[in-house]
């Protein structure tokens, strides 16, 4: 529980990143989630990604809604400010903070209930606006905190722990994000850190809306036979279209990538997404083709993972709003309060 203090001793031989931080500097409080929960693996991947891209921990701002997934921002990167919003409304809070302080890196963590049910509207509109953020959906297809109800991403025909069958169509957040104009879209699996960590690194480096749908089995309520979000089911149906390395603009290029067809995408901040194709017919820079591929594979019962789409030259909300370079929360009285003479002119115009 969070009453338990976490020891803050650092081993002197811990590896340091370019900023001199160790991995421990990116950790948070002790998780209160169930043992073996996929969400904790995702938190660990976030820690590793932040460490590896040399992100100063306090330059991150963490947001979440309500649910098991939304508890997790307390469990990683403690030196960052966090905001646990109301249910389904994390996107609006993150949007407001981003408008106020454009100099931070924004990470939203949500679940399938928080995003696809109560929060579907806010999810959609934040994506439409191109808010510069990484939005991770920890998707387990179930309401864990209220003990096992279906969520809107549960597949039709999927069985609940007590045997009930889901009759409703699922919402595919990746396809939705693509349709709504997200400029970085990926799907992964909490149990596949080698795929997930680079996806998070690329997303944090991306300027624009990055959506990551991360399947994260619920060990308590959705990991049984008949569920389509169980560890076994996802492993059996995982169809990875590519594998990715992210090369920071500052880091020396390491050449130990695996063989295969390579495609390099340079993002706005200079980071390079080095993609090794697994599926020959997949192009991560073609939005419409991605939609078609995903639809075909979904019909076959396959779960497509990897970096599904990226637009490296994306614009974000601030570009559209033409805001000044100084973050709005750093503007001074002199920037904000017009002179008295301006008020006198306005008075005169109203007579």
């Amino acid at each position, binding site marked *: 529980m969070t009453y338990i203090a976490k020891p803050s001793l650092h081993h002197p031989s811990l590896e340091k990143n370019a900023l001199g931080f160790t991995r421990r500097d990116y950790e948070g409080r002790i998780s209160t989630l169930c043992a073996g929960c996929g969400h904790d693996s995702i938190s660990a991947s976030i820690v590793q990604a932040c460490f590896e891209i040399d992100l100063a921990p306090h330059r991150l701002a963490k947001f979440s809604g309500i649910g098991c997934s939304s508890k997790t921002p307390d469990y990683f990167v403690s030196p960052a400010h966090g905001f646990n919003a109301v249910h389904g409304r994390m996107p609006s809070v993150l949007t407001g903070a981003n408008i106020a302080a454009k100099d931070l890196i924004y990470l939203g963590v949500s679940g399938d209930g928080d995003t696809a049910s109560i929060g579907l509207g*806010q999810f959609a*509109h934040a994506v439409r606006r191109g808010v510069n953020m990484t939005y991770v959906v920890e998707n387990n297809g179930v309401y864990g905190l209220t003990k096992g109800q279906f969520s809107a991403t549960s597949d039709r025909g999927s069985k609940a722990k007590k045997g009930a069958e889901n009759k409703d169509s699922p919402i595919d957040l990746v396809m939705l994000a693509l349709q709504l104009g997200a400029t970085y879209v990926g799907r992964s699996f909490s149990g596949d850190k080698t795929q997930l960590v680079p996806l998070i690194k690329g997303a944090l480096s991306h300027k624009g809306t990055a959506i990551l749908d991360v399947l994260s089995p619920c060990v308590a309520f959705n990991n049984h036979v008949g569920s389509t979000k169980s560890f076994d089911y996802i492993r059996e149906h995982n169809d990875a279209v590519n594998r990715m390395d992210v090369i920071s603009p500052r880091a020396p290029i390491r050449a130990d990538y695996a063989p295969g067809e390579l495609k390099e995408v340079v993002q706005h901040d200079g980071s390079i997404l080095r993609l090794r194709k697994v599926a020959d017919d997949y192009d991560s820079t073609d939005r419409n083709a991605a939609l078609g591929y995903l639809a075909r594979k979904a019909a076959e019962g396959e779960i497509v993972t990897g970096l599904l789409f990226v637009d490296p030259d994306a614009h974000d909300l601030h570009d559209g709003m033409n805001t000044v370079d100084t973050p709005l929360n750093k503007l001074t009285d002199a920037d904000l*309060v017009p002179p*008295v003479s301006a008020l006198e002119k306005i008075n005169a115009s109203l*007579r």
Partner: protein
Amino acid sequence: MDRRNGRAVRPGDGQEAHRSFMTKPIAATNDFVVKFANVNGSGSASANGLFAKVILRMGVPVGARNIFPSNIQGLPTWYEVRVSEAGWLGRRGGVDLMVAMNPQTWVGDVQEILPGGYLLYDSSKPLPASKFRDDINVIGAPLTELIAAEFVNPRERQLFKNICYVGVISHLLGFDPELVKQLLTQEFKGKDKLIQPNFKAFELGRAYAEANIAPIGLKVRTSDKVGDRIFVEGNDAAALGAVYGGATFCAWYPITPSTSLAESFQKYCTALRKDGEGKNRFAIVQAEDEIASIGMVMGAGWAGSRAFTCTSGPGISLMNEFVGFSYYAEIPAVIFDVQRGGPSTGMPTRTQQSDLMLAAYASHGDTKHPLLFPANPTECFEFGAMAFDLADFFQTTIFVMLDLDIGMQEWLTEPFKWDATKKLNRGKVLTYEHLEQGVEFGRYRDVDGDAVPYRTYPGTHPTKGSYFTRGSSHDKDARYSERGEDYTEGMQRLLRKWETMKKHLPAPIVRAAQRRTPDGVLYIGSTGPAMKEAHHTLDELGIHLDSMRIRAFPFSDEVFEFIRNHEQVFVVEQNRDAQLKSLLVNEGGVHPARLVSVLHYDGTPITARFIVKDITEKLKAGHATLRENAQ
């Protein structure tokens, strides 16, 4: 033409015979009410506004109100102008001159004219005698015919008919035509090709009236009672206040009657908040709904930008959860609530003060929120700016409670003033330097004994000062806690913070009666002008009342002292359920019997005559009860 009784009767119009006069025509100079009955979407607003501005330019105060439907085209709309040299700007009640341009509402409009009053109508088509009244003065002017002879385009014909009746009235009331032309020129600056046709339409009406209609008993005479006052809507003023108050972000969702506040913020920011390169020192997002609007405001306020939303009752209903979050997690926010008629969709284009309880106690659990009650656009500007200092200092949602009457009507009001030496008060914020110097930080600790905690903006320091904001229960260092002691300690501190606030909110304004009296009256907001006039009338009737205009909730001790010092206190408000009275009873432990409600809630702004009548009757009834009890 027959000019008896100032009425132009067309030759051969057998039905319109001479009417004998039972009632003396009203004679009044600089003190009367003119009402225009129009069809919405017909372009009458600018003509009517021109009429009001001419009178202001003549130095005579006016109180002007649009009474309009929730509709874009085709439904009835009225514009009521109170002309008052004495400076009474509220609605008086009754109409002296009706300009009846809408056949749909003809019967009611004619009915509303006071005996001896005047009716101006478009006499292009004859109307049967049964359509008129015997006790009013009927003035016909063939507006449609006059305009049709000069203009061809149907839209122009419709638009210029409005300016044409201004021409007629300008003669009836004695306006200087050059002044009207001067204002028209000003109005159409930049659209110069509209100036000449407007002059033409104006002249058509004026020339017809000069040739055919005798002057009437109502007159506007040049005076000097307007001074340096300005004529402006409260929404516009509040938006300008937000600019001076340092607001950088507005997230909003369109809803009558608050929409023009966001639009004005855009207008003023575009004029006043661009940097040298044309980039914006502000941001405005039209959100997908009111929940997202307030969510964005929360995020921005948390990150240290001054942010607001503007909405009306239905929006507040939707925002409740976040408002409770703001109370408990202590996030600064400003909400301008431009109240309209409720409940539900209610009367979107009518005015009420019926969101008081909703705003004061918004959201589940034990919550309460400060409310500011501006009574005119000048206070909308002042409170609009002040709200951001209060929100930042007290780290909670501040409601600025306008209503449609203040928000969307142009009021004659004192000019805006700003103290150039004033600094924005960002409240208790620890900076990088504070943290470096070793200032200890705990997000919800009461360090200064005023129950107001310190906060940090995100990204302040690499290792110190971060915290986790949550709406779930937390201890004084913002850690998740379900311990009863941690919870009650936090809730008690919020109560103490509430007490601190009372000393920082705008104080009530008291007006003592001419002599000692056991009776008092309390009121808020847009009731002001009508109350002021009602006071004057009651004084003349020998009814003396001390009065207090409350300007903020939580109520200061002064408010309850005022109640204690009187035997009975009238509480005048514009809702059905006596919400202000409920707040007084609830927060001050006042015995309900001491507070006598005067309630006006039909959606139109309260009138002086209504207040006088209601208070007079209640005093009579009350005195009778007192006598009975004494026997």
